[in-house]
């Protein structure tokens, strides 16, 4: 964790510099606030409107967490099924790729038409964007298990179950975590998109309301909130990876 602070100051400094430039440019050019508010206005709005924002934040966090959990579950299950049953892999894998080619922005309103404004269509949207990176990452991990290790396990008499639980699953963990990191950030995006369609609360709702009333400062607050949430999710996965995958040689640390 200490590392994060030691390494984190450089991007933080760049970000601060950008904010300062932005502030000066807006002030000098006298840009009206509804077009582009200065960062100070945005932060002021974030602090003053915190009580209103909190409700939306909580709702989005719950939705993305739930969606991420379901997406991860389905993603893993799909990967295991595709890996263990070659027939299913041949039949389903191409369709999985197709499922990612359907534009969410088109599919989402359709889901609302079919399933209403409840939580179900929202979860489907998040699951759809979340499960794919996990399935692909896990499948790759399973398949890249070194032949020599597999050969030893087979010679030692390992059953198909033992081969999977003792060798292929642990071997795929680092790869699986790469997929989880991508999905974690996608889940926030998926939640916001699904909230656009119609929800009582959520960052997506807050954002739509703000932009339709030309509260550009609030739009920016929403953007920063989404970025912050994604970063937080990403960090949580990173932490879980550190705890679970201890064996990976940490060359990055030495540099």
């Amino acid at each position, binding site marked *: 964790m200490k590392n994060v602070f030691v390494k984190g100051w450089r991007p933080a400094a760049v970000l601060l510099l950008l904010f300062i430039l932005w502030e000066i440019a807006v002030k000098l050019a006298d840009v009206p606030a509804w077009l582009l508010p200065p960062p100070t206005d945005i932060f002021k709005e974030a602090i003053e409107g915190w009580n209103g924002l909190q409700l939306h934040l909580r709702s989005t966090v719950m939705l993305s967490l739930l969606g991420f959990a379901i997406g991860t579950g389905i993603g893993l299950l799909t990967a295991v099924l595709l890996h263990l049953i070659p027939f299913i892999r041949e039949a389903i894998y191409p369709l999985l790729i197709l499922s990612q080619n359907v534009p969410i922005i088109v599919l989402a309103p359709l889901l609302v038409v079919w399933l209403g404004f409840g939580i179900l269509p929202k979860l489907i949207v998040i699951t759809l964007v979340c499960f794919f990176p996990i399935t692909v990452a896990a499948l790759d991990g399973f398949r890249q298990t070194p032949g*020599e*290790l597999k*050969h*030893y*396990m*087979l*010679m*030692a*008499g*390992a059953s198909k179950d*033992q081969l999977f639980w*003792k*060798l292929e699953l*642990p*071997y795929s*963990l680092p790869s699986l975590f790469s997929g989880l990191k991508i999905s974690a950030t996608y889940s926030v995006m998926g939640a916001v998109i699904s909230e656009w369609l119609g929800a009582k609360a959520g960052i997506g709702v807050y954002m739509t309301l703000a932009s339709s009333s030309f509260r550009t400062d609030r739009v920016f607050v929403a953007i920063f909130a989404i970025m912050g949430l994604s970063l937080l999710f990403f960090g949580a996965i990173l932490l879980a990876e550190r705890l679970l*995958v*201890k*064996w990976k*040689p940490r060359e990055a640390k030495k540099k």
Partner: protein
Amino acid sequence: MIQLSIDQLSKSFDSTLVLNNLTFHINYGEFVSILGPSGSGKSTIFNLIGGLLLPDSGTIQLKGEKINGKRGSISYMPQTPSLLPWRTILQNVLLGQEIQGKTNPETARKMLYKAGLKGYENAYPQELSGGMKQRAAFIRALLSPQPVILLDEPFSALDELTRHEMQTWLLDIWNEHKPTILFVTHNIEEAIYLSDRILLLSTKPAQVVQEVTVPFTRPRKEELFLDENFLACKRGIHAAFKLQQR
């Protein structure tokens, strides 16, 4: 008394005959080496005994029981250590037992001490040197409950000095536990130094062309490598191979 017997074993891949009526046996507590040039189908023999492949004809018997295509009947040490990188050394040496059923961490710990791996029980394989990894891999094979250990050119990837050290170490351990060992190698000196009997293998198709009973008493010392009789034995095997190639 015969423990493992291979009878009239034949195997071909895509109409190329790899093994032709291969016949040999190993007695209880015997150290037998299969010596043959690279590409003589040695790994095919192991895959057949290990049950990964089925022979076209012939039988493999362990204690009189047919084990054709039956996986996990023997204990195995591969050419590369093949330790699982996410397991500690202790967890790794227990893997063979774990696959077969019950584990016994206490014996494993004792054996690691004796193997000079004390203090490395909780280390991960990538922290160990090549020789140490091979020791761990051998202990894993020794701890596995199966009665016969197959060793597939285990020291071929090590440097000369480490290899000598490992050979002497292997003899010490073997002396103590007397497991039945089938050792595959392409190194003539290694075969003479370690084994009771050596089977010389021809290439394509593989057949036992000659059987050499090693005349030296045990325990053997490293000085043996420079002994006149040792060199004579080596010369004899060398000549037998030369004759084959003609």
